[in-house]
């Protein structure tokens, strides 16, 4: 229904354009008036669910000019910050936006999947039109560098472990809870508003351990304030060859990749295929752009690109993985 209306509108407007062009003759010839390749004709809104200054905002601001560069028509890709509720407000906004390609968003898969499981929200990650995966940010477990615990097994011997968290529905907390559940470790959460406070609690020695993404903690590991005990991925990190992955520490193998954080670009559900293809193409070209790689290098970001179809498949598997640990979440929330 909506689609036919859109086509009718586009037909009408292209007819109008033809008349106008015939009338004045001096109109720019570069404008292609056919319905499918006409996208985009106006600026694209690129929604970020976090405040300026964070990793997601930096990513969005870095890639936006390159998406613009590789789009067929010269329109701007405008980054809009819509912070709050752990990016759920932005996810809801994109979910409800008109699927015309003029609203896209950057998604934190790990965080939002946890939120979707634990709380009542309007967005549904399984229906979002995925355009690309930009990067992969594996989960890690860290302790203070002054901590007596050298391995995860050392913690098992302690009868009361304090885990520094950022809300119980957070992806990192879920990772920790699932790990401790497998190991049979008893723990209490020490809750904070933000990453910096929760890291500082560990550095200060008030909490024993914390979970997070490697990007958010790398600087503290490299500066010698924190020590990594576990790296959640299919193989060990080349820069930290001594840190084990879950399956090497006696944990089930499906935990290796279940909790990784992915940076994705998505659009509202039921985005028409031709528009999706145009956006997907522009994002892919942006990621391959050598100039963009210079910017990434400056920011110490790495890419891990997946196209639209592969991202959709990956999200499905990830959501299934979270579903498997759902009882860990419900148990967590029922505790009190």
């Amino acid at each position, binding site marked *: 229904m909506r689609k036919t209306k859109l086509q009718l509108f586009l037909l009408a407007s292209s007819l109008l354009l033809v008349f106008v062009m015939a009338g004045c003759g001096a109109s720019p010839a570069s404008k292609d008036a056919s319905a499918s390749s006409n996208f985009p004709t106006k600026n694209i809104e690129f929604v970020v669910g976090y405040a300026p200054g964070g990793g997601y905002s930096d990513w969005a601001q870095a890639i936006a000019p390159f998406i613009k560069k590789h789009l067929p028509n010269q329109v701007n890709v405008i980054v809009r910050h819509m912070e709050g509720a752990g990016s759920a407000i932005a996810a809801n906004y994109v979910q409800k936006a008109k699927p015309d390609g003029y609203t896209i968003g950057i998604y934190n898969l790990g965080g939002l999947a946890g939120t979707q499981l634990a709380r009542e929200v*309007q967005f549904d990650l399984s229906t979002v039109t995925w355009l690309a995966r930009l990067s992969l940010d594996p989960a890690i477990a860290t302790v203070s560098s002054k901590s007596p615990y050298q391995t995860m097994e050392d913690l098992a011997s302690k009868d009361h472990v304090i885990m520094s968290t950022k809300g*119980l529905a957070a992806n990192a907390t879920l990772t920790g809870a699932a790990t401790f559940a497998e190991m049979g470790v008893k723990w209490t*959460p020490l*809750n904070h508003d933000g990453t910096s406070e929760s890291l*500082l609690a560990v550095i200060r020695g008030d909490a024993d351990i914390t979970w997070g993404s490697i990007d958010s903690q790398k600087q*503290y590991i490299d500066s010698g304030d924190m020590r990594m005990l576990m790296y959640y991925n299919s193989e060990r990190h080349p820069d930290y060859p001594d840190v084990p992955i879950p399956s090497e520490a006696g944990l089930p193998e499906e935990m290796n990749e279940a909790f990784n954080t992915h940076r994705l670009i998505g659009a509202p559900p039921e985005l028409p295929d031709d528009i999706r293809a145009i956006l997907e193409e522009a994002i892919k070209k942006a990621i391959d752009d050598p100039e963009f790689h210079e910017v990434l290098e400056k920011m110490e970001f790495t890419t891990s690109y997946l196209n639209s179809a592969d991202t959709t498949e990956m999200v499905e598997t990830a959501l299934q993985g979270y579903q498997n640990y759902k009882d860990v979440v419900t148990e967590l*929330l029922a505790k*009190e």
Partner: protein
Amino acid sequence: MGFLGQIDTLLQWDYVVIMIGAVLFGLIIGILPGLGGSVTLALLIPITFSMSPEAAIVLLMSAYSAVNYGGSITSILVNTPGDAANAATTFDGYPLAKQGKAKMAISASIFASVLGGFIGLFLLDLLIPVARTLVLAFSYPEFFMLGLFGLTVIAVVTQGNTFRGLISGMFGLMLAYVGTDPLLGLDRFTFGSDYLWDGLSLVPVIIGLFAITEAFSLFTQQEAYGSDIKVGKKGAIEGIAAVFKNFWLFLRSCFIGIFIGIIPGVGGSVASFLSYGMAVQTSKNPEKFGKGAIEGVIAVESANDAKEGGSLLPTLAFGIPGSSAMAVLIGGLLMHGLAPGPEMLTTDIELTYLLIAAAIMGKIFAGVLSFVIGTRMVFITNIKGTLMAPGIIAIALVGCYATSGNIADVIVALVFGLIGFYFKKYGYSRIAMIIAMVLGGLIESSYYQSMATFGYSGFFTRPIALVLLGMTLLSIVWPYVRSQMKKSRGKGISA
């Protein structure tokens, strides 16, 4: 005093041009209500991509230094704070403007800001060797005691009307608990709206309570709030003199600011409220406050700027931001290959000194510029109230919307405009309510955090927490002791 060596680097003409441009930019952002330091930095960071790290530091620090001044000008003139940190400036700044002393208030606030900023950065420079120990000395029991100490301010600012003051405070506490609960991270009093997950955001509430409420009463009372009073020509000099007259108060406020700045996790607006409260408590005539006491403006503005020096400390020592603006600054520094953290105190120490020098120079430039602009904007107080009111409402609501582009913020501001109007009409305290709302979340979360890590004993065995507890008790008992003392001396003036 390592930063002194960097000052001459900054006086190269290209850096001076960058500084002036950045300061103007920061001032404009600051004058727009709702937009604060973190927005300024976020907007400027993309521009720094093509610059050298030194130029980037100069640009970011100068713009950031200027933001606060812009915010204090609007707080005083139209009761509309630029940012949550300026909110307490409205308490006495606006009443002063109403009395025709806007020029004096503005010059005092800018002068206190600049000088406070100096002291903050100066102390930062001295504290660098002990930065790490200092940051780690504060934990949850200390946060809790700080919050508790802050709450006693309510008792002081509502003197003579304690019952209504308590109700206002309770109302503020109630509002503080809207959002995500700190124990489990689940919804609480959110009425099914994700807008409330993070709690009521402070800026729209403050804009509603002060700016919109004021605009409403301008309408109803038909008053032209400054027109019948002649603006003294000497206002500017009086303002600067006022800072020196209250120099001890000024210094104390600076220390409070630095102290709060050092502690990540205790919001920046806490500094201005605490120092306001301290000013009221130590004043010989606390009843003046809220009705136009220049001490109130000086205390808030000096703490506000001194705080920035403090909040650089955890940034430099651990790479952990001391405030939201610092978080953005760290992002900007990372893009230039500078890793904030221990290296900034060892291998990159020269850049650190440049950062401090740039902040100091930025403050001088910003101070001069905002002094020139601010004192000329005083004419606003001569505009008739019925003409001003729609203007205030428009600016305030645009500011609310601009902060995060969410129309819900505008609704919150309007609702609190109405609440504030009735608060004012029936003699309830808006200041008490805001103080409780700012501190409520801190008190609650730090209580749970203390219990999870230290248990009850944490409150009573840690020396810093005990000192703060002692100060809290003292500030509750002190007014009674003082009035007893006055009575016994036979002077019998009611406090």
